[in-house]
């Protein structure tokens, strides 16, 4: 099989590390060769973060270059735009419709672009957008945005439900498993968000 390329982006502090670990765990359980990159250090301080997930029969590079990702998963809308370049033509964007204003926007030095989803579509991308902040709150905590988005992302993988369940149990701290499972399921089942 050809190597599959998935990019997960978000804002530092949104839990992309945990999402990465969950993804990696699931791929291992399914028996694939996989490489999963992580982000540490400076960019975690509220900066933009990007992580790469690649799997298949034999994976070489741990990074995904521009124009290569079939799936771009974004925990925050603006980040989907920032990393749009990584998407291959006709690829799918799975995004949170919620926004977190970056400091230049907060300070009034820049504007948060409007109608981003429309612009993604104009460029030929398929957009699957959900209101992950609201859904996460429903699951019990704003902090679950990562699991809501991973639940949504799981739709795009031919894995058994048990794989995700098991991977989740093995990566999330025991006392948070229930809430995270709920977030994951709510993300999976969520209605597409408003455009």
């Amino acid at each position, binding site marked *: 099989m050809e190597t599959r390329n998935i990019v997960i982006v978000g804002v530092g502090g949104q839990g992309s590390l945990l999402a990465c670990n969950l993804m990696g765990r699931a791929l291992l359980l399914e028996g694939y060769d*996989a490489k999963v*990159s992580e982000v540490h250090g400076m960019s975690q301080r509220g*900066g933009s973060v990007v992580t790469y997930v690649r799997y298949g029969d034999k994976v070489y590079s*741990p990074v995904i270059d521009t*124009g290569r990702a079939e799936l771009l998963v974004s925990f925050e809308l*603006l980040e989907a735009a920032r990393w749009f370049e990584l998407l291959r033509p006709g690829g799918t964007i799975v995004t949170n419709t919620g926004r977190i204003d970056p400091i230049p926007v907060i300070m009034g030095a820049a504007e948060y*672009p409007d109608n981003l989803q429309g612009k993604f579509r104009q*460029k030929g991308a398929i957009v699957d957008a959900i209101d992950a902040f609201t859904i996460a709150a429903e699951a019990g905590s704003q902090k679950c945005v990562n699991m809501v988005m991973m639940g949504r992302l799981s739709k795009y993988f031919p894995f058994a439900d048990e794989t995700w369940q098991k991977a989740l149990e093995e990566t999330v701290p025991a006392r948070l498993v229930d809430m995270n499972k709920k977030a994951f399921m709510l993300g999976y089942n969520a209605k597409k968000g408003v455009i």
Partner: protein
Amino acid sequence: MKSLLLGNAAIARGAWEAGVCLASSYPGTPSTEITANIAKYDEIYTEWASNEKVAMEVAFGASLAGRRSFTGMKHVGLNVAADALFTISYTGVNAGLVCAVADEPGMHSSQNEQDSRHYARAAKVPMLEPADSQECLNFTKYGYALSEEYDTPVLIRTSTRIAHSQSIVTMSERMNPPFFQYEKNPQKYVMMPAYARERHPIVEQRILDLIKLAEDTFLNRVEMGDTKIGIITSGTCYQYVKEVFGGKASVLKLGMVYPLPSKLITSFAAKVDRLVVVEELEPFIEEHCKKLGLKVSGKDIFPICGELSQNIIADKLGVSYNDGMKIGEEIPGRPPVMCAGCSHRGLFYVLGKIKAVVLGDIGCYTLGAAPPLSAMDTTICMGSSISSLHGYVRAGGKNAVCVIGDSTFAHMGINGLINIGYNRSDCTVIIADNSTTGMTGHQENPTTGVNIKGEPCGKMDIEAVCRASGIGRVRVVDTYDLEETERVIREEMSIPEPSVIIARRPCVLLKTTKAQPPVCVDADKCIGCKMCMKIGCPAISKKESKVIINGAVCSGCGVCAQLCKFGAIGRDISQT
């Protein structure tokens, strides 16, 4: 057993499997998780050392005592440890000693882009470079055998993409830790001139022996494919090359990047039409090829600065590739910011307000240089703030202070302070003590009183250290209190005497820091002057003509409330 491991975790596993008994390191992205993972193995005594030189020397001591030891650091950490490394190269080891050093092309979290391979050459010690997590484990393990067989410290070089990528690893059990009884041998271990002169030729012979090894070690391998192009590469670049070419190029993959083989490279070159070296940063392998008289492409087509990528390699070597589509819109940047409630924020607000020249250092507080605080003038390397302030003041510089974090103070800052105490200059040194090594992910350090395993241990008394260094004036302020912080800084700056201000307030992200209820804005009182936005807090933004505070982000530090002249920000306002 198979597992998906981070490169850093795989190095830790390799050290464990090799029977390592001691690990001493100082954190630094992207190397930190190696030692954090080693600490999970009960069989290995693991510690955060106060700095990399100390760590290297601790590891040497353990090797001398007959136990395999490990130290890990980021590329600039090796600058600090270099003094020790260069002479441990002469003495050699007793039990195996491996040092992992993580380079950072692209500077995701670093202050420069130096290439550690130069250190291997300069110190005349072997350097291995793994290209995935499995190799991280295998090379580390093999590093110990190599270290003992050739009587040398061994460097393992990684880069961000190897250190911070997970890939599949087959693991084995821990071997019985070997033990080498220490025997007194001053000719080998006391590097005074007479003995060192005897050791130097041994080092030179060792390099010749290692070159022989390099010619046929399993670490270096040829993967013949199409012979129109032959690529010599190592580490993450090997993966990029395979990604771009698959079997459509011949590849010489080097797992040992110092010393480099000559015959292997020459014979590989003879089999291909065009020879190319693909390496990040310096033309290290390329220069070796040129010395061998080979015609080779390298930095004539690839950049020295930054990371390489599949697309750059494809582009420069004439392979077609997809370049992604731009969204065609200005995307506002999202630079890293001090967290809401960061203890450093108030300090930099005050320093900006009094327009001080701030000689800075490295840590979360370096973000004080970014707008809107914009209150830091320099960042060089760990500890430089204090020493440079002394020079600045001695040369007549006015209105200056320096800011250094607690971990950075214990790392190298302390040396500069001893110099100030000794040479007496009217310096005002500010130690931003947030009770943790924040920048690299909250490691313990000598000032926190807790060790790497989370157990209570010794605690350096910063005040006492300052006094013992000859600083008479040592004061403590709480950076959540702007008025007091400003008053104390102004006072100390005006007094012609060396002084230290400890700006003490634990990091908000620490588990031990109790969350305070968020503050909010009374819209009736807010006139939208944006005074509170001068501190660049991510919880505060403007909505229409008023300011709003995001309660989910706010940590309730109350610094913004102190800036509001209209009393519009408070904790108890119930918005009706």
